[in-house]
């Protein structure tokens, strides 16, 4: 293994996910000598990007796999709606405009696309799906980077960015556990959020955060983010907030990814471990509501909840990765879920009694609401009567955190004395600038691609 400390690298990229790879490729294409350091072993390379499936792309007419048109203003309106205005309009509009040319750039650098997946037809106009998902995208970028002469070192955790007089000179990293100082002329920080550091989450959220599941990589622990903040880098985003959805409670602690999602909530009643309902399960169609359920479940005792349906609804949603608990009586189901049978029966009975006749329409707001129940269920309220009964446990699954480094339009990071001369950031670690709240499907990869490319170009221009 070549000694990384012997070279003065032109550009060092911290983190080999989507944003870091885009930066590395752009920089290497100018002839710069580029090093990628990633804390994960090779098998887990690609961070959270490995778990993605699509990116959101502006386009004026049909483009590759994208149908119709998705213009700038519509895209921006969608962003304003989910962030409730918590965005930097200049950066947001710039990202949206740049997304259009990302697609051909991605194709030219090895990414293949596919038509939108079954069950996600609603996204066929706005989101371009990666063939094989994010891991295939990551593989393609690593191959492209390798062909361009980029050096990649896995199991290399960056612990400190050395900034002297407003400029980066090198960094400290644990290479296979051994501390090393590596020198470079520019750095792109693309090491994701801090959601895998449960202590940090617990500081921000309270000790209940230790019961949260982390949907993505265990390696995004925010080590470099904290190091930069300690050095006075300007931050952005609410430090106490994370994006969390309700996922299958039996999922792995880390890296469960997309398959752990559960789409049964709108057709179910959801109770906490005391057997009580706590929120309107039928408030809106699931894609618009699934993000609030992470928070709702996080607010329940022991951060757990149970979604209960009957035989009528079992085939109304995408199959789950783990089979549901199944029983022929509500009591039997309660026992399997580990909650009180008497209590669950009372809750189900009260719910059933409040259901009204009407037309059930699974794919639209059908107005089939309960009458006189608190909290109400305002759509898809059908009595739970037909055995077998099914139950899934739900836990909050964290996707990403909002706190990050503030950047300008050139992806440059600012320190206490203004913009740093040669430090850029891209991807999740700066996404809070644009996505201050909520989430827009496919926007994380758009931000990473747009800013990764800019950061790589800027860093390369700086060292040229």
């Amino acid at each position: 293994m070549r000694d990384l400390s012997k070279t003065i690298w032109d550009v060092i990229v911290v983190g080999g996910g989507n944003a870091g790879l885009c930066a590395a490729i752009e920089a290497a294409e100018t002839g710069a000598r580029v090093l990628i350091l990633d804390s994960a072993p090779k098998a887990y390379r690609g961070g959270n990007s490995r778990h993605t499936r699509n990116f959101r792309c502006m386009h004026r007419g049909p483009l590759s796999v994208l149908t119709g048109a998705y213009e700038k203003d519509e895209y921006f309106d969608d962003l304003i709606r989910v962030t409730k205005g918590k965005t930097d309009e200049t950066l947001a509009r710039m990202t949206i405009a740049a997304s259009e040319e990302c697609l051909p750039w991605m194709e030219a650098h090895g990414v293949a696309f596919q038509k939108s997946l079954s069950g996600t037809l609603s996204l066929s106009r706005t989101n371009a799906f990666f063939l094989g998902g994010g891991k295939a995208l990551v593989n393609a970028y690593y191959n492209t980077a390798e062909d361009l002469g980029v050096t990649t070192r896995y199991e290399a955790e960056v612990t400190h960015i050395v900034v002297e007089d407003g400029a980066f000179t090198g960094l400290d990293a644990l290479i296979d556990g051994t501390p090393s100082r590596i020198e470079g002329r520019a750095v792109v920080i693309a090491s994701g959020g801090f959601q895998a550091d449960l202590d940090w989450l617990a500081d921000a959220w309270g000790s209940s955060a230790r019961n949260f599941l982390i949907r993505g990589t265990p390696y995004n622990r925010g080590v470099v983010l904290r190091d930069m903040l300690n050095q006075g880098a300007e931050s952005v985003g609410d430090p106490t907030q994370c994006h969390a959805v309700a996922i299958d409670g039996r999922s792995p602690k880390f890296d469960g990814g997309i398959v752990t999602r559960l789409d049964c909530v709108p057709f179910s009643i959801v109770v906490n471990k005391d057997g009580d309902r706590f929120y309107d399960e039928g408030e809106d169609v699931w894609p618009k509501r699934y993000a609030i359920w992470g928070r709702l479940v996080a607010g329940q005792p022991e951060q757990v909840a149970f979604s209960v349906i009957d035989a009528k609804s079992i085939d109304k949603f995408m199959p789950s990765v783990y089979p549901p608990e199944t029983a022929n009586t509500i009591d039997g189901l309660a026992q399997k879920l580990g909650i009180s049978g008497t209590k669950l029966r009372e809750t189900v009975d009260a719910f059933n009694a409040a259901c009204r006749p009407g037309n059930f329409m699974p794919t639209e707001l059908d107005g089939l609401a309960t009458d006189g129940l608190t909290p109400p269920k305002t759509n898809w309220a059908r009595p739970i009567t037909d055995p077998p009964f099914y139950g899934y446990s739900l836990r909050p699954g964290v996707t990403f955190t909002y706190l990050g480094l503030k950047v300008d339009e050139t992806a440059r990071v600012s320190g206490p004395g203004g913009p740093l001369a040669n430090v850029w950031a891209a991807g999740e670690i700066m996404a809070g600038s644009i996505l201050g709240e909520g989430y827009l499907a496919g926007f994380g990869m758009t931000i990473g691609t747009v800013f990764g490319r800019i950061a790589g170009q800027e860093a390369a221009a700086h060292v040229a």
Partner: protein
Amino acid sequence: MSLDIPQTQDATSEARRQIEICNACRYCEGYCSVFPAITRERAFGDGDITQLANLCHNCRGCYYACQYTEPHEFALNLPAALAEVRVESWARFAWPGRFARVFQQNGVALALALALSIAALFWALTALRPESGQGFYAFLSHAAMVAIFVPAFVFPFAVIAIGLKRYWREAGGTAITMAHLKSAFGDAARMKNLSGGAADGCNFEKTDRYSHARRHAHHAVMYGFLLCLASTSSGTVLHYVFDMPAPYGLFSLPKLLGIPGGFLLTIGAASLAWLKIKADPSLGAPSVWGGEMAFVFLLGATGATGLALYGATGTALVSPLLALHLGTVLAFFLTTPYSKMVHGFYRLAALVRDAQLRG
């Protein structure tokens, strides 16, 4: 008709476990027809798993793209899981099943069959040498050739027909229409799925980089084989219908079909063997690696010995090369129902069934 070997649950339940994860994920939908077939169902019976396994052509795209491969606890390796089910299903459907195990898994057994066939031909050439005759028939009479090769040709097809019938029952197949056949043969002829779906090739020998090498090599073998078959058939027609027995000149139909066919077959098989050596065996069914490799050599040897025989025309080598070539062909046909060769038949059946299920 009861099967000689029951469907074991190990391979099938492992494949089912993985398929259920895929059905919750679906990221690989664009690679091949396996995934669209998965998303049409929620629960997978044993027959469904067999059908899905035979739809898979081991391109490995879904392995390298999977975020859940080991060391992840979901331990996805769908190409391997389906390969295990697939080779097991061929052994199970074959009659008699014992043979299938032997030739599928064991390259030595196949080599032995080859040696025996060649020896048999040497014996035939010495014992049955005719008084007179032209070309090859100077060494082995036409009647003797027919006596050996007609049964050797009919037998495998009869056995494969039994297997296909068993397959069809297990996969829940219904009455076949022209439209189903058109769709299946269309896919097979273009090897549509081998092209990687929306991908630029498959991930066979260059790990996560895409390549068309396997598709090209497979095309060469398949069309080479079909040309050789057509060459023999045209010879048969010339012999019986037009009363024009062999030998044939260079510009005759049998030679015009056979020579390019022989080259394609030989080169294609050599490339397939090379690709197989480069590819990661743990993404296939490791137990049959040796048997499959031997099969590829046997296939290539039918082409190579045929060409050698033609090249030796008029020399003293004709007699031994004739034994070699005919022995190879004999071994190839006799072991067809039990070798990798059956994949073509089951794959076609799976494509027909898939066309039915797509409606």
